[in-house]
C-alpha cells in the first residue's frame, strides 16, 4: 500500500506535556464557569464594602477615620470560613462529577493520560485557580487598605496569608471532590459539603463554649476551638479555617501562648469563664496545618480511588 503513512512514535513524549494539557483543560473550565466568576464578583464587592463602609460611616458621623497600619495583615482578603467553603464549592463541585454528568468524561478518559494524571491535573488546576483568585483579592485589599487606613505594616507577610487561605480552602475542596467523585453528582457534592459545613458551624461554638471536650474540635475541619493570647488581647481559633491568621500571628509573636476557655455558668446579665488549658501558639499552628494536610490527603485519596475505579456506563 503506497498510501500508508509512517507514524510518529510518541510513546516517550513528555509526562509534563500531558500533565499540563490536563491542567490547561481544567483551568479553562474553572475560569469560564459562571458560578466561579460570580463568586469572584461577590468577593470583590464584599472586599470593597468592607473598605468603603468605615469611610462612609466616619463621614456620616463627622469623625475622621483613624489610621490602622495592621489592617491588611489582620483582615487578609476578608475571606472567612464561609468564603473558603464557597470558593471550594464553586471551584471543584463539578471537577469530576460534572464530567460524568455531561458525558465529557468519555473523550477525556479515552485519551492517553492515566486517571491518576487526570486527577492530579484537576487538583493542581484547582490549587492554581484558588491561589490566583486569592492573590488578586489580596492585592486589591492591600491597595485599598493602604488608601483607606494609611501605610501598612508587614505587607511582606501577605503571601503567607495567601498560602494559608488557599490551604484552608483546599480542605473543603478535597471533601467536595471526594463526595462528587463517589456520587458522580455535582448537586450531591455541593449539598453534602454544605451539610458538613453547616453541621460543623453550628456544633463548633456550642461544643467550644459549653463543653470540657472542646479539644475534639482541633481535629475537625472548620473554625476549631476559640481561645485568646492574653498578653495581646487577641482572639485565636485553632481550626483549619484559621491557618492564615495563625501563620501571621506566629511569625509576629512566635512565643505566644493561647488560653482556651469555656463558659462556666450563664446567668442573666453575666457569665463566668473557666480556663480549660494553655497551649503554645506554635503547637496550635502546627496541629492545624497537620490536620488540614491530613484532611486534604485523605479526601483526595478517596476522590482519586473513586475515579480510578469508576466505570463509564452511560
Amino acid at each position, binding site marked *: *500500500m503506497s*498510501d*500508508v*503513512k509512517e*507514524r*510518529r512514535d*510518541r*510513546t516517550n*513524549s*513528555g509526562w509534563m*506535556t*500531558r500533565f*499540563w*494539557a*490536563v491542567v*490547561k*483543560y481544567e483551568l*479553562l*473550565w474553572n475560569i*469560564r*464557569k459562571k458560578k466561579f466568576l460570580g463568586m469572584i464578583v461577590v468577593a470583590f464587592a464584599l472586599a470593597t464594602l468592607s473598605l468603603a463602609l468605615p469611610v462612609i460611616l466616619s463621614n456620616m458621623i463627622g469623625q475622621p477615620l483613624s489610621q490602622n497600619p495592621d489592617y491588611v495583615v489582620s483582615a487578609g482578603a476578608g475571606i472567612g470560613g464561609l468564603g473558603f467553603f464557597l470558593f471550594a464549592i464553586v471551584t471543584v463541585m463539578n471537577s469530576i462529577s460534572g464530567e460524568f454528568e*455531561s*458525558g*465529557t468524561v*468519555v*473523550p477525556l*478518559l*479515552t*485519551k*492517553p*493520560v*492515566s*486517571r*491518576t*494524571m487526570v486527577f492530579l491535573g484537576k487538583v493542581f488546576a484547582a490549587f492554581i485557580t484558588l491561589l490566583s483568585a486569592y492573590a488578586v483579592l489580596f492585592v486589591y485589599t492591600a491597595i485599598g487598605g493602604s488608601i483607606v487606613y494609611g501605610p501598612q505594616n508587614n505587607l511582606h507577610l501577605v503571601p503567607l496569608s495567601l498560602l494559608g487561605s488557599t490551604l484552608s480552602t483546599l480542605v473543603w475542596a478535597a471533601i467536595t471532590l471526594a463526595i462528587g467523585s463517589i456520587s458522580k453528582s455535582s448537586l450531591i457534592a455541593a449539598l453534602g459539603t454544605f451539610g458538613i459545613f453547616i453541621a460543623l458551624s453550628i456544633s463548633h461554638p456550642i461544643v467550644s463554649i459549653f463543653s470540657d471536650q472542646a479539644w475534639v474540635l482541633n481535629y475537625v475541619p472548620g473554625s476549631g476551638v476559640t481561645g485568646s493570647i492574653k498578653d495581646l488581647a487577641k482572639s485565636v481559633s485553632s481550626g483549619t479555617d484559621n491557618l492564615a491568621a495563625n501563620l501571621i500571628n506566629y511569625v509576629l509573636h512566635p512565643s505566644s501562648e493561647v488560653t482556651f476557655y469555656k463558659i462556666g455558668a450563664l446567668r442573666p446579665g453575666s457569665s463566668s469563664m473557666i480556663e480549660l488549658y494553655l497551649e503554645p501558639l506554635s503547637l496550635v499552628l502546627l496541629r492545624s496545618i497537620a490536620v488540614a494536610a491530613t484532611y486534604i490527603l485523605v479526601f483526595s485519596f478517596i476522590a482519586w480511588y473513586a475515579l*480510578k475505579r469508576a*466505570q*463509564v*456506563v452511560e
Partner: protein
Amino acid sequence: MELAIETSALTKRYGSLTAVNKLDLKVERNTIHGFLGPNGAGKTTTIKVLVGLLKPDEGTVRILGQEVRGDRPDVRLRVGYMPELPKFPKHLKGWELLDIYGRMYGMTVQERKEQIPKLLEVVGLKGRERDSVGNYSKGMQQRLGIAQALLNEPELVILDEPSLGLDPVGMVEVRELMKGIAKEGMTVFISSHLLFEVEQICSHVTIINRGVSLVSDTLQNVSHKLSGPATLQIEVAKISDAIVEAVKKLPFVSNVSQDGNTLTIELNTRDDVRPQVSQEITSSGGVIVSMSLRGQSLEEVFMQLVAKSSGWKAV
C-alpha cells in the same frame, strides 16, 4: 494474520443482565471492520471495554497486540475513539479542544499546527473553529468527534455510530473519509445501524445480538454463506438459445435457468455485473424489458440472523 483487536471470551454484566457474553472478536489490521447489531445487542458495551471505559467481568482484550488490563494510556496512545453522540466541554472552542487533546497525545506544537487545521478542513469545521463547542449543532459535534479521533493519526480508529446526527451530505463525506484513512494504513472498527453504510465501506463485518457474536467474516463471505448466491432476473423480448449460451459463458455466472421470457441468472460475485450482462444480451440480439438483482443485501442477512437468534419470525 496480524490483529488490531482480539477479544477472547469477553463477558460484561450489568447486574443480572449479561450485555456481552463470551465474545470472541478478531479484527484484522488494515481493514474496515463493521460491527453490527440491533439496539441493546452489546455493541457500545463491547467498544467501551475495548477503550478502557468499562472493565470486563471475564475474558481478555488485546489491542494492537497489547493486553488491555486496567488503565493503559500507552495503548490508548495508538487508538483513536469516537463515542456515540460525543459530548465535549462546552466552554472550549473547537480548536482549543483539539489543541488540548493533541497535547494529551504528546504532539509537539508544530505537529498540532499542521494537523489541527487539516482535520478541521477534512471534517468541514473550517471557519467554525473559534466558536465554543457549546454553540455547535449535533452534527458539528459529531464532526468534531471524528476530528479528535483522527488527531493522533492512530493505528486503530474505533467509531461508534459515526453517521448519527449527520445530514446526507455529511454521511457521504464520512464514508469517503473512512475509505481514505483505511488507505493510509489505519484499521477502522465501526459500529453502525446503517447497513447500507457498512455494506459500502467495510471489508469485514461482525454481527452480534444479545452480546453473542452471530457471524464474523469478510462481507462477501457473510453474504454468500447466509443468503446464498446473488441472482439476476431478466425479462428479455424475443429470447433465443444464443442469448442463453452467451450469458452462460460469462465468468461470474454459475447457473442460468429459463422460464418463458425470463432468465434467472445465479452469480458467484457480489460485484454489480448488470452492465456486462446487459451488454452480452444486447450484443446477442436480445432486448431487455426489465432486470432486477436479488439476494445479496446485507440487510437481508442481518435480519435473517438477528431474527433467528432473537426467536422472531423473519420478515
